């Protein structure tokens, strides 16, 4: 698993988030940076520590990425752009769902199950 591969996965997921957002609002660059930092750690953990295969999980992970974008758009209603507040709320929504899925599927360490 190369660094380059992790970064390509991040590109894939942020593309999915953009799909969920659509063209209605722009996204603050701080949000992109924050999501990158946050999910890079999650993905590294999921892939290197837990041995998850992105190819196998991609459809599910990108669906979550699109949902992240949709939630961010929802939380940014009334704002000119998607800011950090909206992004943090969206991430909380998504990660809560991932936790629930992970627990339901009996995964031992649901905290970083970005692929769940």
């Amino acid at each position, binding site marked *: 698993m190369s660094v380059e591969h992790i*970064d*390509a996965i*991040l*590109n*894939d997921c*942020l*593309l*999915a*988030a*953009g*799909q*969920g*957002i*659509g*063209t209605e609002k*722009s*996204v*603050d*660059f*701080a949000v*992109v*940076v*924050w*999501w*990158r*930092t*946050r999910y*890079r750690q999650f993905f590294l953990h999921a892939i290197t520590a837990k041995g998850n295969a992105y*190819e196998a999980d*991609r459809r599910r992970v*990108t669906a979550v990425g*699109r949902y992240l*974008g949709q939630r961010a758009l929802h939380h940014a209603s009334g704002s000119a752009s998607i*800011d*950090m507040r909206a992004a943090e709320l969206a991430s909380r929504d998504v990660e809560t769902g991932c936790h629930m899925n992970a627990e339901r599927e009996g995964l031992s360490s649901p905290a970083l199950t970005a692929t769940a």
Partner: protein
Amino acid sequence: MNTDTTRQNVPAGTIAHGYDQSIAGAPDETLAHQRAVDAILDDCFLSIGQGIGLRATLDFDAVVWVRTNFRAKFLAAMGHFGNRWVEDRATVTAVALMLGERAVRHANGAASINLDAAMQASADVERYCQLHSARRSAARTRTSSESATAMIAGYWCTWDPKH
């Protein structure tokens, strides 16, 4: 070279590679540029996704190809012009959004955008940028915002790293 102008109170340690003051000011500018370009690519991919919307998905090999293609160009441009992302972001992400639009068009209604469609969309965008780049000299003599756009669109995506 701190490009984070939109949020001043992000806690230390939460800024992505290449975007905190300590890294940006590091003596190894090449490494700083590489890290900066990775975050910029994420920004561009988000815009590509906005352009695609929920009309189609993008095959992973196409994602990898777009990343490889533009990473080299961005790195070369940044090495030559420095990190101008704060100034150029709005223009470059608008072009990325256009790439997404073109990819959907080249996919001809398919549920998934394949590598070929992505390559055609990239070629469209690069042609567009080259046209602007070709007008760069003339644009420099003007003072309008259009001239600035022409310069920006040109150098980010047409810089050939091999030259």
